[in-house]
């Protein structure tokens, strides 16, 4: 019997190895969970893309939940996400605010003109300073902010139809229940 012990030890290692592979296919290893979930969104004042003289602040957006979608014309994954926002953006029931991240205004405008504009409003963070406060480390990223200005959900990477159905919509439905 004790002769089989090394074999069992080996099988245990094989099982551990297999679990490691499975685990890594189930999770995005690059994903860093945001510590900002259920914390107030950082204060920001950012200009609008279509009229840079106008600015939008966190306070101005208070009262109703909204989705901030970080995008840029240089971002390839944003191009993958874009058609999803175009077809399903209106169905989620909250306004989508485009957050143009480290992009040239002309490039962003041309990109939206070419692919369509799924956003209710687009704000610009060319320097990326406010994005640091939001803990943005790539694009696309999406933040669901509730009426009190608290971040409730964050999606790192493109919003897929699956993510919208399974994560975003339930999160929005939960918000609707809270509010009288």
């Amino acid at each position, binding site marked *: 019997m*004790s*002769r089989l*012990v*090394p074999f069992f030890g080996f099988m245990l290692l094989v099982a551990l190895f297999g679990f490691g592979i499975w685990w890594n296919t189930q999770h995005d290893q*690059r994903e*860093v*969970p*945001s*510590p*900002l979930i259920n914390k107030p969104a950082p204060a920001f004042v950012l200009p609008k893309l279509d009229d840079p003289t106008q600015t939008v602040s966190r306070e101005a957006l208070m009262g109703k939940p909204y989705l901030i979608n970080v995008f840029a014309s240089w971002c390839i994954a944003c191009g993958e996400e874009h058609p999803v926002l175009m077809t399903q953006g209106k169905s989620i029931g909250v306004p989508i605010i485009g957050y143009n991240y*480290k992009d040239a205004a002309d490039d962003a405008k041309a990109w939206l003109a070419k692919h369509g504009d799924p956003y209710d409003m687009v704000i610009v963070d060319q*320097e*990326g*300073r406010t994005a*640091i*406060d*939001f*803990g943005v*480390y*790539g694009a696309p990223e999406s933040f669901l902010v509730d009426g009190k200005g608290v971040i409730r959900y964050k999606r790192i990477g493109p919003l897929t139809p699956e993510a919208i159905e399974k994560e975003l919509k339930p999160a929005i439905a939960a918000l609707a229940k809270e509010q009288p």
Partner: protein
Amino acid sequence: MIRPFSFSVGAHPVGDNQTKRRTWRRAQSALPQVLFALLFLIAGLAFAQAIEPLPFKDHAQEVRFQNLTRELRCLVCQNENLADSNADLARDLRHEVFEQMQAGKSDDEIKQYLVDRYSDFVLYDPPVKTSTLLLWFGPLVILLAGAAVVVVTIRRRSRVAPVNTVDDKAADEGDDW
């Protein structure tokens, strides 16, 4: 010494093989040196690209900056630290660290600033917390478990050995792994 040399043969009279050969030999002997110098030049360029010059107050502050950014992880290329990373975000974060340093913030305050936004993931040295207990003490537990197995095995063998010293076959049974 590296002498200036030219690969152009046209400068020498045609047929003057000796001159040609001498020139080539000189070039040959200088070539490794030039390549060597070039290597340093290229390495220097790569370094200069990764870390743009920042106006530090003094050398001590520069050393502090280097040490701090080396302990912080770049979120874009996640196996690189902020000091080495060439990613756009890493550059922004280096500037942020630099500016906070100028503003008189301590290393811990700057780290906390980044942890608040990007979680403990930015720290190459993870803090001891309930969620990191396994990470910190797991290896120690495995080591102790291994030591326990060794101790138990040795005790068992020493208990069995005196009785069966003559009967080699019986003593061998069961502990040949």
